[in-house]
């Protein structure tokens, strides 16, 4: 070991070889330390990163006031004649009152002059030739759409009215331009009286309107638009379908809303009653029920999907009601109050549902605004009022803001940080009453066909599935691996052991995707056929071992050779293979003896268990196989590392090998076996491919051995590719990953500490 260098080199000559070497040494120390720390840092970095991605799930929503402009005074306009709206980027909003519309840009709040074309539409809609003296007395926003309105007039007409935001791109800069159009008016109150309350909905085949006239009569109208006959006629013909609803008490209605599908109509009265009509047949609307909300109902709204209804009252209470159909009885749905939200100080004036989730905004007479989320049952934000009643409000289309108009004429926009309203600790880990269910349940169903779907983020079913797979796999793997390790370490000849141990450890190298494939495509269909034989094996193999073992004692020892040799191992294999083979041969007979000729029927009738092809038993075998080598190898190591002089001492003192094993070896190696089991547990819990491929991945919650389940890991693999970056599902899957990370870390740390202790103890001898 010499350092060869040429002293003639000029650089070296100047700084000296010794210095250079010292620098190099220092530099290397620095680089290695840095590299070491970087690697170690990245390990902790993983945990930190997972944590950072999960935390926003539990942020409480926050708000800030963005714009507040004084636009006019409104005291003389009744609230049922006012609405506000804002576009999806919160850049452009409008105020609609008495049929007038004015637009404002945000966040500066400057009014923008209306283009002549817009004006003319407004003018025209107000001065339609056939109702020149008509005056707008009520307006209603069409549910499920952002800026579609119906205007009700004092002569019983309804005018459809549309605000759209036309977006154009010019040099990659977005320009938004408001466009206003009015539709064909129709007669909604046949007696020509003034419309006091209006519910309006736009459908593909024409609008539907429910109107309460000044004299207190309730009419339901649908305009049936159909393409007029004739091959070339393209104009549509419309026909009015109309009925009067004459149920007792309709004259007391103070609020009226239609659902998004146009199937039900809801009315609230001043004396606190809730009317619920079925209007699928426009000709004959049918009252399905009257419910009591306690006090005077001042605001009503459906939530997206039409199954949940928000009821606001004069006392400021906010509650969600749900339409429930009894699964046993069937028939009409009934309404049931399921959740109360924290109440307002005064009467609720406006409810604005979100158009993308189950959130909604409520506002009250003293100017207070609150945001709630139905599924999680929480009030996300409460903005205190300044005393003037809110006349109209809109929850921003992207649920990231709100536009509010109060009766002092202030138009306010709020910026809302509200990324994950549906996830709270309790909505993730406790049962939740979801739409369409009878009782609170743990459900995981993250995505549905449409926006109306209520995402169900109960983590329990998946955690339960993880637990189920782990338990069954460990039940199978533990005895095989630990007993095998005991035999290998204590009774096997060293030359046999030198072959057996690496062979079993080869199994650890099997890619789990291979085990999953075999389990799902080979073993699962096979097991379905030979289940009776497999069930019999669990009984017959131990029995066969006992019988042959006893018989073996009578054989002359010349034949047996020393214990733990190849002969003995071959006998074990023969016993095992022979019993397995006979069970397989007798499969149909076993099925008829044990299971009344059909095990599926037997399971169903005796225990009420259904048999799925890809079930927990398949997983138990496959995951058991994946984890046996791990447990086997570590247990075997700790068993064979028991200091030999201890064993020799025990044997020398006259203990039999059996006594030495039970009283000394197993006890002193038990921490090692324990840590082997812990490491095995950690491996099973996070196993992905086997579970993904060999279960049906259905997130059900029962311990049935014969059906599938979904685990945290498989859930990540299934749903992550479809989860939008930064969304609630995305973060929830990070939470699943974090749970796995934390669990396996705890288990492995425990195992490692136990192992280090054990090593220290052995080294004392």
């Amino acid at each position, binding site marked *: *070991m010499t350092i060869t260098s040429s002293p003639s080199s000029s650089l070296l000559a100047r700084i000296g070889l010794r210095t250079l070497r010292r620098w190099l040494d220092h530099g290397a120390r620095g680089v290695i330390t840095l590299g070491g720390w970087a690697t170690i840092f990245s390990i902790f970095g993983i945990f930190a990163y997972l944590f950072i991605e999960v935390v926003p799930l539990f942020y409480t929503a926050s708000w800030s006031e963005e714009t507040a402009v004084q636009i006019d005074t409104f005291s003389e306009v009744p609230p049922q004649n006012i609405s506000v709206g804002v576009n999806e980027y919160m850049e452009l909003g409008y105020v609609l009152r008495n049929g007038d519309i004015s637009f404002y840009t945000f966040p500066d709040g400057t009014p923008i002059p209306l283009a002549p074309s817009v004006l003319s539409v407004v003018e025209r809609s107000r001065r339609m030739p056939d109702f020149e003296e008509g005056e707008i007395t009520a307006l209603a926003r069409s549910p499920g759409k952002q800026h579609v309105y119906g205007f009700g007039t004092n002569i019983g007409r309804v005018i459809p009215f549309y605000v759209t935001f036309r977006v154009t791109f010019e040099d990659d800069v977005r320009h938004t331009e408001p466009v206003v159009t009015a539709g064909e008016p129709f007669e909604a109150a046949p007696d020509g009286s003034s419309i006091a309350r209006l519910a309006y909905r736009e459908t593909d085949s024409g609008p539907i309107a429910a109107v309460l006239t000044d004299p207190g009569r309730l009419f339901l109208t649908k305009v049936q638009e159909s393409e007029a006959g004739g091959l070339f006629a393209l104009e549509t013909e419309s026909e009015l379908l109309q009925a009067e609803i004459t149920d007792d008490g309709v004259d007391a209605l103070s609020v009226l809303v239609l659902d998004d599908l146009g199937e039900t109509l809801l009315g609230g009265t001043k004396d606190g009653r809730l009317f619920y009509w079925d209007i699928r047949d426009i000709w004959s609307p049918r009252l399905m029920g009257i419910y009591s909300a306690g006090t005077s109902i001042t605001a009503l709204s459906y939530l997206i999907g039409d199954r949940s209804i928000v009821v606001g009252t004069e006392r400021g209470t906010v509650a969600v009601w749900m339409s429930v159909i009894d699964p046993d009885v069937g028939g009409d749905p009934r309404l049931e109050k399921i959740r109360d939200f924290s109440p307002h100080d005064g009467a609720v004036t406006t409810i604005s549902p979100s158009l993308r989730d189950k959130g909604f905004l409520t506002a009250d007479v003293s100017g207070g605004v609150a945001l709630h989320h139905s599924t999680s049952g929480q009030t996300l934000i409460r903005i205190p009022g300044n005393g003037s009643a809110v006349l109209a409000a809109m929850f921003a289309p992207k649920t990231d803001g709100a536009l509010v108009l109060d009766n002092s004429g202030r138009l306010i926009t709020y910026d809302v940080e509200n990324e994950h309203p549906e996830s709270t600790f309790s909505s993730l880990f406790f049962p939740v009453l979801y739409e369409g269910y009878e009782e609170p349940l743990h459900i995981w169903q993250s995505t549905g066909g449409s926006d109306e779907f209520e995402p169900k983020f109960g983590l329990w079913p998946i955690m339960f599935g993880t637990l189920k797979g782990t338990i069954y796999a460990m039940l199978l793997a533990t005895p095989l691996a630990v007993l095998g390790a005991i035999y290998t370490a204590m009774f096997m000849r060293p030359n046999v052991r030198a072959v057996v141990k690496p062979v079993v450890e080869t199994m650890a190298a099997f*890619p789990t995707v291979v085990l999953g494939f075999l389990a799902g495509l080979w073993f699962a269909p096979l097991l379905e056929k030979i289940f009776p034989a497999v069930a019999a094996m669990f009984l017959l193999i131990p029995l066969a071992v006992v019988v042959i073992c006893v018989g073996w*004692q009578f054989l002359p020892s010349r034949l047996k050779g020393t214990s733990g040799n190849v002969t003995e191992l071959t006998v074990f294999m023969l016993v095992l293979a022979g019993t397995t083979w006979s069970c397989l041969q007798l499969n149909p007979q076993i099925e008829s003896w044990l299971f009344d000729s059909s095990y599926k029927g037997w399971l169903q009738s005796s225990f009420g268990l259904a048999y799925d092809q890809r079930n927990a038993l398949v997983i138990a075998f496959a995951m058991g196989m994946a984890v046996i080598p791990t447990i086997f190898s570590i247990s075997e190591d700790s068993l064979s590392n028991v200091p030999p002089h201890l064993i020799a001492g025990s044997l020398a003192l006259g203990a039999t090998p059996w006594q030495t094993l039970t009283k000394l070896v197993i006890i002193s190696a038990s921490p090692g076996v324990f840590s082997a089991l812990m490491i095995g547990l950690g491996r099973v819990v996070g196993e992905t491919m086997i579970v*993904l491929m060999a279960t049906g991945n259905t997130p059900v919650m029962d311990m049935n051995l014969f059906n599938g389940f979904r685990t945290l890991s498989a859930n990540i693999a299934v749903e992550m590719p479809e989860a939008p970056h930064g969304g609630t599902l995305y973060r929830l899957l990070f939470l699943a990953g974090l749970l796995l990370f934390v669990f396996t870390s705890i288990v492995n740390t425990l195992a490692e500490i136990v192992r280090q202790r054990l090593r220290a103890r052995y080294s004392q001898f």
Partner: protein
Amino acid sequence: MSDRIKKFLSSGTLFVWFCGTAVAASLLMVGGVLLLIMVNGLGFFWPHALVEMTLTDGTRVLGELKGEEVIPHSATPEFPEGKTRVRLKVGNRDLYGLDFRWVDTEHIASADSPKDVAAFERREWGNFYGRIREVSRGEDVVATGNQEGWKALQPLIEQANDLQEEIEHLQRDVIGDINFEIEGTRLRIRELELRGQDDAREVAELQAMTSQLETQYHKHVETLRALSRQLDEYSVLLVETNGQEKRLPVGQIVKALRPNDMDFFEKILRYFMNFWSVLSEEPREANTEGGISPAIFGTVMMVLIMSVAVVPFGVLAAFYLREYAKQGLIVRVIRIAVNNLAGVPSIVFGVFGLGFFVYAVGGTIDNLFYPEALPTPTFGTGGILWASFTLALLTVPVVIVSTEEGLSAVPREYREGSLALGATKFESMLRVILPCALPGILTGLILAVARATGEVAPLMLTGVVKLAPALPLDHHFPFLHFERKFMHLGFHIFDVGFQSPNVEAAKPMVYVTTLVLVMVVIVLNLSAVALRNYMQKKFKASAV
């Protein structure tokens, strides 16, 4: 007697027997699984004999015999054993709908292996089993009859395969190159626009180039059409065993075999040819047929990139922990952390890789360096680089632990001797310790590679795809395309076995892929074990 029983029980022999049975069970499971994979995987390449059966109702069935079983619940007093049925791969998916068919043994009137039936491997619809009625060129019949047709067909198939190769070359290489350049100029124009340097002359130049490339493109497409027409020039009229006819362009046939007419050596030869073609060919029919070469290539590439990433970090960390750090609580905690990392489920690494590498790092790279391609992500989506990095994180504990083992096996005297001779610590590390620890490092690397080869779950989130349009390595600058998605043997198994529409027909392919994967992993593991043994021996010998 009861004494003997008592003695027998207290001797624990019975318990020992149970322990022994547990070992035997584990061994049988390993052996069984290996055997299962070998039989199914290796059997795939053998040219199976074709059986032609006449059924009692007069119809005939032609196909490969794929097994026999007792019909469930068929045991009757006359047949206490139950009736049996055989499973045939009858192919001709376009005519029959299904590739497989069960035939009850009692319905078979006679069975035979005629020498003149042939198996045609087609580019679409799987195999065709049957005979040739005529071979024609356009409308003109060139050869009629099975024997004549067979003779005429052989050179035609070879010709068609050559043509097919030419077409593929044209599509992939020539037209692929042009597309690549067109995309390049498009991005260049966009880049100039974004930078605000889009002076008209340069843009016009680029646009001229694009249109020139497009002209070339159209020219090649014309050639391609001509070739395709040529491919369809000859057609063959096939007839299945019941006389149903099917006309097929010769270009649709990959190869035609008469397995019943082959002797043993021909079959062996064919066996290895089949084996090679699976390893070297591109997949067809949604990966269920053809070869697995892109998956092998992708796996190898990914593992190589991972190795380059994992070795320096793992070795540095191990040297730090073992040679430089002060042994104490911190190092103990770090060791536990490293061990924990080895126990963290692989899917968690996938989640981390997706969030950190793909979205955070990749997204930033896109914004900084590839704004012209946005909103199409370049690095901000899964790719081979991110998958490799994710697996590098996953396997870094393996390298650390193994290198540490290697370092701890280096006798203390070596260090002391080196230092005593005046070497600095770094010099003795570099010249003495590192060479001695090299087998340990290599063992770690091999184990890491073995683990990475078999790992699928994290890849599913970080860039593996069922069918990659282009390999991550090609002749376009910069040759290595780290951002590209890739195919992987393990994912291939998952995808073909569980997401293809015709799982039954895809099974052989899955078994073959499994065989290749398992062999690679086991060979890697065994070599790691061998290396470790060598290392132990070497130091045992030198320590004396």
